[in-house]
């Protein structure tokens, strides 16, 4: 177990067999140890506590991790995802949108990236003025541009409106955004917070846009709860799912009380609202919450994912995360507790995003190039601190840490093992004329994500995974196609030869050898695909019976190999 993955260590009361030690991980693995001597246990406990709480970035695993890449590969890895390229793909800059250099030295907004796209009509004074009127200086900028509809998703933080303050530049800024959209004069302003929270913020001199002060806006609250609610919601969920000998009703009422699925649904509902505004009304949308880096990132990225099939490819999904999460300053370091910091800053906002995506993959099994393992792997590495991508809270901080020189990027590694993350059912032409996904958000569509929260409790998962089977089969199909080609070529060649056989006898000895080489794989392939592994099970979950599944064939377990090998790597490093 990677030290960075440890979320909590707990010492339980002494028992006859020794001192139990429970380690809870950020990837939802829970490990129980029994240490025979209490003193040892105490030492281990203290060391783990210290090791899992890193004070400085430089002590994180990413700075010591060495995947045997040379420098040029490292540089190339970091260049793999190029956001300028991505904006070009969307169709900006264009006659309405331009690249602004206002934030070149992070002067206007520390938590934004350097390159920002704004409406052409928004001059620098407007930008500066607007940023002064927005919390943390996060003024409205482009997040996604929909080429066909000419509509944009923009993002910002809450206005510092208090009860009556207004700012002409900010009003101009919003007008510039709605004017940049020739197809619809109106624009939507989505405040992703519950109305009550937004109103409370007014007392602190913050708040939300007054529809009277801004021309042609339609203002809408969508009611996603804040990071503290989400944190305690996950806490409750984990308490329920971690209970032993759980009854169905306790599970369901626990699930209900945690509110977790309700929050996931709220996030997805907000994204659906955004998508409707763009796809149906061709209206631009400005999204914000309080600081514009949690709920705003969720809604903007999910909206783009629903609108644009590119983000449903493996590479596109990486781009989406780079853009809406990493570059726009989602505070990964604080939210995932990479350093020993304020526990009130921790929140599973990104996990919720991944879970929303997973829910979509369940509803549209053919629309996504990637599979569940891909989402789980990304989740793993957001917390592992093994790669530089998710370190720090914003781009400025990352530059100061010189992450691009000192650490490696996760994306090339994921691309290298792409095969494992491919969805065998993916159909790139899925609803061709309409790349838009319209998910059904009736409650029964939202399910508990067992493979996330019980990733390591193998006993709970289906013994045979249809998905893995199909994945192997479609992989095997490619190999078989290859084999057929080879065999046909060989037969052809042989036919040619046997015609010529009587003439050229000396060619003969060359033939048996290749066949002999070819036979072993053929026998291997004809073996049944399903491992015989049912013999070692008991009634799981009904009682406290221990898990007797040791002979489980690793290939068929969920996303195990990579995790294990990664941990071996760590084990070696820390020993």
């Amino acid at each position, binding site marked *: 177990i990677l030290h960075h993955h440890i979320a909590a260590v707990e010492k339980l009361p002494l028992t006859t067999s020794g001192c139990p030690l429970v380690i809870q991980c950020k990837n939802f693995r829970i490990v129980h140890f029994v240490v025979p001597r209490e003193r040892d246990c105490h030492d281990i406990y203290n060391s783990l506590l210290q090791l899992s709480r890193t004070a400085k970035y430089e002590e994180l695993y990413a700075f010591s991790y060495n995947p045997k890449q040379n420098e040029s590969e490292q540089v190339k890895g970091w260049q793999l995802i190029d956001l300028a390229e991505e904006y070009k793909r969307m169709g900006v800059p264009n006659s309405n949108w331009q690249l602004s250099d206002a934030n070149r030295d992070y002067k206007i907004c520390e938590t934004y990236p350097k390159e920002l796209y704004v409406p052409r009509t928004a001059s620098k004074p407007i930008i500066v003025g607007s940023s002064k009127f927005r919390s943390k200086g996060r003024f409205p900028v482009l997040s996604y541009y929909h080429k066909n509809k000419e509509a944009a998703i923009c993002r910002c933080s809450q206005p510092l409106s208090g009860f009556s303050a207004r700012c002409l530049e900010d009003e101009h800024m919003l007008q510039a955004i709605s004017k940049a959209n020739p197809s619809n004069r109106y624009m939507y302003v989505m405040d992703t917070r519950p109305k009550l929270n937004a109103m409370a913020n007014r007392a602190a001199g913050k708040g939300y846009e007054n529809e009277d002060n801004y021309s042609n806006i339609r203002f809408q609250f969508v009611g996603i709860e804040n990071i503290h609610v989400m944190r305690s919601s996950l806490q409750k969920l984990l308490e329920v799912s971690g209970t032993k000998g759980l*009854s169905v009703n306790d599970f369901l009422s626990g699930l209900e009380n945690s509110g977790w699925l309700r929050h996931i649904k709220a996030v997805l509902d907000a994204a659906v609202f955004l998508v409707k505004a763009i796809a149906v009304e061709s209206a631009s949308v400005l999204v914000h919450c309080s600081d514009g880096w949690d709920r705003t990132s969720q809604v903007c990225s999910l909206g783009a994912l629903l609108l644009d099939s590119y983000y449903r490819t493996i590479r596109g999904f990486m781009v989406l995360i780079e853009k809406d999460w990493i570059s726009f300053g989602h505070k990964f370091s604080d939210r995932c507790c990479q350093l020993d910091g304020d526990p009130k800053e921790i929140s599973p906002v990104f996990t919720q995003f991944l879970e929303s995506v997973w829910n979509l993959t369940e509803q549209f099994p*053919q629309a996504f190039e990637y599979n569940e393992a891909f989402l789980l792997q990304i989740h793993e590495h957001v917390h592992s601190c093994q790669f530089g991508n998710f370190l720090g809270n914003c781009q400025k901080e990352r530059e100061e840490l010189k992450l691009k020189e000192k650490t490696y990027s996760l994306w090339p590694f994921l691309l290298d093992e792409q095969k494992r993350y491919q969805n065998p*059912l993916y159909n790139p032409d899925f609803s061709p004329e309409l790349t838009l996904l319209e998910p*059904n958000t009736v*409650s029964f569509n939202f399910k*508990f994500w067992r493979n996330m929260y019980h990733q390591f409790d193998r006993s*709970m998962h289906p013994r045979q995974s249809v998905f893995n089977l199909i994945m192997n089969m479609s992989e095997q199909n490619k190999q*078989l196609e290859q084999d057929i080609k080879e065999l*046909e070529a060989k037969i052809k060649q042989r036919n040619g030869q046997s015609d010529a056989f009587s003439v050229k006898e000396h060619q003969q000895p060359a033939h048996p050898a290749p066949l002999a080489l070819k036979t072993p794989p053929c026998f291997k392939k004809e073996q049944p695909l399903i491992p015989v592994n049912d013999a070692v099970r008991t009634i799981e979950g009904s009682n406290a019976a221990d898990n007797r599944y040791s002979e489980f064939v690793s290939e068929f377990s969920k996303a195990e190999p990579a995790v294990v090998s990664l941990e071996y790597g760590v084990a070696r490093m820390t020993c």
Partner: protein
Amino acid sequence: MEFAELIKTPRADNVVLHRPFYLAVEGTLCLTGHHLIFSSRRQDNAEELWLLHSNIDSIEKRFVGSLGTIIIKCKDLRIIQLDIPGMEECLNIASSIEALSTLDSVTLMYPFFYRPMFEIIEDGWRSFLPDQEFELLSSVTDEWRLSCINKEFSVCPSYPPVVIVPKSIDDEALRKVAMFRHGSRFPVLSYYHKKNGMVMMRSSQPLTGTNGRRCKEDEKLINATLRPGKRGYIIDTRSLNVAQQARAKGGGFEQEAHYPQWRRIHKCIERCESLIKLVEACNDQSHNMDRWLSKLEASNWLTHIKEILTAACLAAQCIDREGASVLVHGTEGTDSTLQVTSLAQIILDPRCRTIRGFESLVVREWLQAGHPFQQRCAQSAYSNSKQKWEAPVFLLFLDCVWQILRQFPCSFEFNEQFLIMLFEHAYASQFGTFLGNNENERSKLKLLQKTMSLWSWVNRSEELCKFQNPLFEANSLVIWPSVAPQSLQLWEGVFLRWNRPSKFLDEAHEEMISIIKYNKELQAKVNALRRQLAEMETDDRMQENL
């Protein structure tokens, strides 16, 4: 009685059919003795809907001006709406449907009128006979015999004419045991585990009453199934409390003192009243997450699933792991008992996971064992007039099978559709298989002569191919399902079948099947090519030798 008397308006034009997720269609509605037929003959979109009256669970009517609306709720949980112009027509049609869907007499049911349009290759009524089953058994053990004691249904009205009992117990003893068991359901063989010779028996509760009656023959009978020095388990599907209360009504349970070689375990499977609540929750299209989860919880459906699976796993564990014989019973031994014995067999016996094996299991453990299908499946989730003998016992069993199927998707020869088909036919069918409450009633109704068996239809290759699981690879092992709440799922194929668009899921499923098919084709081709190459090889070598 003539059906024509009940049909006041046999036909109505310009009727509009509404179904969720489909466009409304206009067409003609016809009523026949057994069907409601809706057909639209528009050129671009000709379609027909045939609905058995016996499939209709409830019917509601509404009026807006002269436009009448009938909402029909079916036993397979589908809901359709028909807009019928004309107040009188609408009222007539509604009352006709109501009358036709609640016919009292079994002999008026469709199976007695249905004439098959297919060629009968194998008579399903003769596909699964007890003699065949016994023949299989006697090839591995000679400790059991086929008793014809119930030939005229004289000893136990809900048992089949022949039953399998220990060889050492004669018919006279059986008669005495029958007097000691509720409804005369004396212990009979349910399953023989070839691997270790352990058995599972089922019966009803013993009639010990308050003063602790005992029956020497009963003790002898069940002890006859034990190996010397071995113990057995009695799995009572009631809680200890309920079992104790049963004594006041003359029932009871086996006292340790009288059955010293047996350990009694109470695994409570409560009688399920929750289908209505579950279906109501599933039909609620509102977007409130908390309400959905609390309704799902309040329905208790998944709790029942867990209870039943747990009891079945326990029975299977006693047999396979502990090497002990098991006797299963509840009160009457016609409901929860059968759920446990049949599911335990699916866990233990690979044969029950094949199509034919599963059909045979349903025949043995449900139809012949006297599960009162007609009473239990009289109504489904929408009926207003709920009778106390109605309960979704068989549906719960199918749901449990589906849960295991989901956890072992490659170990079953049949697919989800097969289970859904059985669910539909248990509630409304053109076949006689699920009519009547036991073999006694079936023989009185002369179903064998007068109706067609479901199995005659299913077991033809045209139908079978729809129910085959492309991933099936025979698995000879015992399969232990997980019963953790996180592992159990709502059976969407039944409960959300009509409530959500399934286009994307269906397409994905088709894609999956085509990948599997393609894989098989490629493998066959590779093998053929290899063979060809090898033949050429030997030819060459022979030539060389020449």
